[in-house]
């Protein structure tokens, strides 16, 4: 599904990712944890092609293709999705038209016909229900005036509609109340199957109680310093990151 080999990337002249390698197989859920500023969001941004993030060496294969050679929107249409840590607002553009345009773009890429407005509206309403957002949110501007938790649920709704093959969730759990956390988790779990993979960036073990990962990685100083199974998350919760410093050195 995804193969990252010796990836080095910089932002604003500073090297952030250093020789990062990671392999994700179809159907796997990988959790990425690590201290603030260690490069977790940077990884998501580099993979999705965000302007300003410069890859200095290394390669990334996504379903066998050279991911880094694709345009931002092509990566999306190929099935790569990023749920943002800080979703932005687009005033005046309704959620509905935004979602329809993005779903149309993805379907077109897959050679599927556009959904009719009627069918799309029905689908969007059903999906908004799944993330406990009132259908009224579909008529509002994209994230416009949404609360922090509503923005995160909106991200998950977009993910559900786009049915990506690789989903990166960047701290989708931060700022969520307990009910919302369950909504997000059950959304992800409902989408899990043997083809779709997830990268879940989080600081908290709690989310991983609901979404049980196959692998847990610790990112520190721009590289993966430790990988393990789901029990690693418990260990981190108990001990923090400092004990890993020896291993980093």
């Amino acid at each position, binding site marked *: 599904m995804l193969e990252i080999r010796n990836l080095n990337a910089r932002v604003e002249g500073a090297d952030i990712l250093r020789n990062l390698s990671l392999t994700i197989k179809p159907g796997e859920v990988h959790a990425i944890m690590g201290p603030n500023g260690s490069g977790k969001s940077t990884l998501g941004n580099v993979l999705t092609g965000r*302007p300003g993030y410069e890859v200095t060496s290394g390669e990334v294969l996504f379903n066998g293709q050279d991911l880094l050679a694709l345009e931002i929107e092509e990566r999306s249409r190929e099935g790569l999705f990023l749920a943002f840590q800080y979703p932005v607002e687009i005033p005046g553009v309704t959620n509905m038209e935004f979602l329809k345009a993005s779903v149309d*773009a993805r379907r077109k890429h897959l050679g599927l016909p556009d959904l009719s407005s009627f069918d799309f509206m029905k689908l969007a309403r059903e999906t908004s229900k799944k993330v406990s957002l009132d259908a009224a949110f579909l008529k509002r501007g*994209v994230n416009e005036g949404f609360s922090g938790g509503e923005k995160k649920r909106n991200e998950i709704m977009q993910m559900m509609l786009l049915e990506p093959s690789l989903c990166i969730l960047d701290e989708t759990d931060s700022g969520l109340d307990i009910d919302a956390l369950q909504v997000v988790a059950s959304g992800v779990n409902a989408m899990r199957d043997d083809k779709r993979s997830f990268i879940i960036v989080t600081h908290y073990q709690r989310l991983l109680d609901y979404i049980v990962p196959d692998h847990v990685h610790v990112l520190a100083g721009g590289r993966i310093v430790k990988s393990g199974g789901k029990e690693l998350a418990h260990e981190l919760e108990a001990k923090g990151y400092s004990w890993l410093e020896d291993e980093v050195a």
Partner: protein
Amino acid sequence: MIALQAGGPHVTEQVEGLIRKEYSAGFHTSIESDTLRPGLDEDVIRFISAKKEEPEWMLEWRLKAFRAWQEMEEPTWAHVHYPAIDFQALSYYSAPKSMADKPKSLAEVDPELLEMYAKLGIPLHEQEALAGVAVDAVIDSVSVVTTYRAKLEEAGVIFCPISEAVHRFPELVKKYLGTVVPQKDNFYAALNSAVFSDGSFVYIPKGTRCPMELSTYFRINEMNTGQFERTLIIADEGSYVSYLEGCTAPMRDENQLHAAVVELVALDDAQIKYSTVQNWYPGDREGKGGIYNFVTKRGICHRNARISWTQVETGSAITWKYPSCILKGDNSVGEFYSVALTNNFQQADTGTKMIHIGKNTRSTIVAKGISAGRSQSAYRGLVRINAGAEGARNYTQCDSLLIGDRCGAHTFPYIESRNSTAQIEHEATTSKVSDDQLFLCQQRGLDAEKAVSMIVNGFCREVFKELPMEFAVEAGKLLEVSLEGSVG
């Protein structure tokens, strides 16, 4: 080694790209024209008047305006810059030659003219069938084809070229022409009054709701021919009319002057909705060759009357335009909804004036400015509350959206209140199409152009919803085309 572009420059380059789009309506047809020698003096005015076989009073009216114009100076206060216009180098009359014997039907119309409309996406053949829209097509100075007139006349509505109204309805023309925009109002209005070529005349009788939306397409076709349309719309007591104006112009090397005057008269309880989607040729990427658009549009509202100006501006090298309302009657309402988009080297100085004279008069101003490339746009609005305007209210909202970092938006709100009971609210915002917004859209599979046009359309939503349906769709498309190439 793979290098992704950095945030700031990324957007700027995208913007550059989006702007590089040839003007699709830019072409020149070679209909033979009957053009007057360049220059302006009393003889030229007599020639124009004679050519139109105008009555003496009309000629006198023009001459009076001309004499006033000679004493006036070009205004220099607008936030626009352009080389001096040599008014003596322009020609002040031009009519398609095939007009000598007026066509009775489309079949008699110059095929080249029809072809030109087709290129512009205005299929005249279909217009006849197009439900609800009557088209008074103006090419250069003379109205060529008028459709639907019979149906309108049945309702008592008069919709005809103003040159024809001068002959058929002299009393109405005499009574109202120049009452809203006097001959001496300003430099360009005086020039227009002296040499106006043609334009539309509309009269809606008392208590009548005009049975269809009235629409006129304007087009400049003659090299170096100043365009001086004159439109007069009179809505008699308790009547309603919605009038649509749309423009597009061919590509050209020299800047072209356009100085129109539009006068609206809304008598007691009447309502006029005037919508414009304007697409004059803006000039090439270096800013060469666009239209200079200096327009005076003004309406007067009598008791309980309402005038709404809605406009979407994307064209012109230079735009100087302030559709205004004089709220003379008690309880009258003035509205101004505007979207002005500038790109490349365009300059726009637009806005409105709301003059509150009557009691409990209300006005609403929603102005949206979008600047891309190296363009400059300015909003200039005046809200004046006269001493007698007890209980007057105004709400003004001015929003600017910048695309890229080499363009500018400026707002100049002027408020003059001479009545302490007046309530005036003003809100202004400036925002940018941010890298983050673009990235969000692209991460969701939209290409940059689609993303920008969606963001821009979202920004304009409040204004677009004021436009008649088909115009709103057209306006959305126009913005998309105008921004094509400014990202990517």
